[in-house]
């Protein structure tokens, strides 16, 4: 019985949150990795792209809520998601036309593009704050829990409860659908194949008649869709605050790099590696250990390896270790 309790406590506090967070990171990292693979630079504005997409979703959700439209148990934001994706697509396409296009023509060095993306980051950040303000916004509605802790306890008679939030379940489902669609697109469609060809070998792709501007446009469209989805899911799960999205940049980049920049499969693996290590290292293990260990060995402290405020340090240390031992990431990434 104690062993079951330990497993339930572990799932409740570690596994479920880490899977949800990992899915969000994976979606974010996929965007970063696609930009790196096709456009060949690290996009510092990615966090703010996520914030922009999520912001549109928040605004549309509020409008829908005021009209009395809803999805019942599911959050209204799901209805707003397609609109938000379209808005975000428009933004990144305009940005590409006005900003990045020029440097592509010039064949500018990647580091220049990184600095350019810093400028874009400032503008997007300003835009989001300008439109919705810098504060916390709540837009989640519908049923709060798939299973609440109390229901679970009544159902199983265990002492520990397992709570799964609707947003957590939704995150995983939506992420699986998005990733499946992405891989289908990259592997089966003509455009997807040309994207992969362009990423693998630019010259050869150009030689075989692939239109680079078309490839770049599709990349931005996909990235906008992924970023908005990640942003909305994160906002639903935690809350929407522009600055938090900027801070997500670090774990997202860590995920993409750990998996190998430019490698979509790596980005997903990286997202889960980072999420699981952040959660396990900052979790206070006392409860689980008390169930598992005999009474004599029961811990007196919290058995928390690091305080939650140091979660950045975790993603960072993993990043450093991977880079020092496997400079192109766990899955073979590319080096520009």
């Amino acid at each position, binding site marked *: 019985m104690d062993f079951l309790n330990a497993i339930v406590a572990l799932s409740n506090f570690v596994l479920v949150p880490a899977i949800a967070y990992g899915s969000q990171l994976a979606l974010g990292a996929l965007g970063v990795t696609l930009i790196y693979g096709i456009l060949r630079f690290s996009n510092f504005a990615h966090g703010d792209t996520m914030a922009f997409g999520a912001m549109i979703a928040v605004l549309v959700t509020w409008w829908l809520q005021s009209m009395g439209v809803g999805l019942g148990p599911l959050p209204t934001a799901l209805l707003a998601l397609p609109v938000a994706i379209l808005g975000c697509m428009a933004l990144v396409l305009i940005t590409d036309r006005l900003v990045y296009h020029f440097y592509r023509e010039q064949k500018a060095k990647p580091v220049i593009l990184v600095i350019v993306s810093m*400028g874009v980051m400032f503008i997007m950040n300003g835009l989001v704050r300008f439109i919705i303000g810098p504060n916390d916004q709540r837009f989640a509605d519908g049923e709060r829990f798939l299973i609440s802790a109390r229901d679970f306890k009544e159902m199983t008679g265990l002492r520990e409860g397992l709570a799964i939030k609707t947003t957590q379940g939704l995150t995983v489902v939506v992420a699986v659908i998005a990733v499946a669609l992405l891989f289908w697109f990259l592997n089966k469609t003509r455009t997807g194949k040309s994207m992969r060809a362009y990423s693998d070998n630019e010259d050869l792709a150009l030689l075989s008649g692939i239109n680079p501007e078309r490839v770049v446009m599709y990349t931005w469209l996909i990235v906008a869709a992924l970023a908005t989805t990640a942003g909305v899911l994160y906002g639903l799960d935690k809350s929407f605050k522009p600055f938090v999205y900027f801070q997500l940049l670090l774990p997202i980049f860590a995920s993409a790099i750990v998996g190998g920049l430019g490698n979509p499969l790596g980005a997903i693996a990286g997202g889960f590696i980072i999420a699981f290590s952040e959660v396990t290292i900052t979790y206070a293990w006392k409860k689980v250990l008390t169930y598992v260990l005999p009474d004599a060995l029961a811990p007196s402290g919290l058995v928390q390896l690091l305080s939650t405020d140091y979660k950045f340090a975790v993603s960072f240390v993993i990043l450093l270790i991977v880079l020092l031992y496997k400079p192109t990431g766990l899955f073979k990434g590319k080096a520009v």
Partner: protein
Amino acid sequence: MSEPVKNTLLFLLVGGLILLTGFMQSWNSAILILNMGLISAIMAIGVNLQWGFAGLFNVGVMGFVALGGLAVVLVAAAPTAGAWGAGGIGIVLALLMGAATVVAAVFVTKKMPKGRTRMLVLIAIMIGGFFLYRGVFDPNVAAVEAINPAAAGNIGGLSLPVLLAWPAGGLLAAGAAWLIGKTALGLRSDYLAIATLGIAEIIIAVLKNEDWLARGVKNVIGLPRPVPYEIDLQNDPSFVERASGLGLDPVTASTLYVKLGYSVLFLIVLLVLLWMAQMALKSPWGRMMRAIRDNEVAAEAMGKDVTRRHLQIFVLGSAICGIAGAMMTTLDGQLTPGTYQPLRFTFLIWVMVIVGGSGNNFGAVLGAMLIWFLWVQVEPIGLWLMQVITSGMADGSALKEHLIDSAAHMRLLTMGLVLLLVLRFSPRGLIPEH
């Protein structure tokens, strides 16, 4: 127009803008802009050293600036009575044990043959060391933080003159930069960027959470100053007399006097560092740096030790940022870890360097003063602009209120726009490199 004339005119333009602030708003805000502009100029010199001279992409400026601020607390603040006896020594011991663990791990990695045994020994050292460290660290931290937590709760400083904290800030930042550079400098440019970004966040997290060090988010206030206090000046009859001789009331005169005192100190530091940076740029060492930046492979073929030179300039540039950070904390008179934001302390400095002209020290200084002026003044200008735009709208309409409230966020938009415009139309900056 010859180049020196153009550059002089640019500097005069910035000076004119600050004077204009003095005439139109108040002299206090004008000198405040000047002071922060001077500090920003020093940070920009540091970043220019790394990026402009050596092409190192460091986006962890915020961390080094914050370390400089920490140095002010550790050097100049009053010591907390009994803190060292209660747990301070234990904390230092714990930190040394932590460092010894890492050193041992590195030693094992280097000396033992590759294989499963090495892995096991490494894991044993790391886990054992970690728990040993926490075992010593935690009780001592609790003891220190228990001392008068409302007012102190930290180990306090050494009560030394605050000016000593400036070089100390540089040293602290240099030490951190050395550690970071040793591990991260071998990485490619955008990996280095992400690594430094992460390190800056970690440094801020440490400052926010380690209450025993500098009280965390409870802030350290009332740090000593290198200039007299306004209230003392106002109570000094000879000062009041001189002020009235100039036609100023004592309160204004004292605030101006104090701020100008800071300006003079900052200007001296800036000029010294600028002179040193110019000398370095012109020296064979500077030429070597630029050679490495332009073609690493060729420089290496000529027998230059690229990794060591990179480490050297990374440490130097970070130290300059640390000095600037210490100066800024001295100017504020308080250390508030919650206020360090990467947009303000890292990316804004980058905008300064790019706009001014990377690779040119005078460009960095000019860019810093100009961008800082904009950063401060965009807010009132934006507010005015919004009032003009919304003047036709009905009073009390939600859109009008929203637009006027949002004027404060014009800053980030403007900075992004300035950066993008400069990169597009004048990519070498206002004062290009020779």
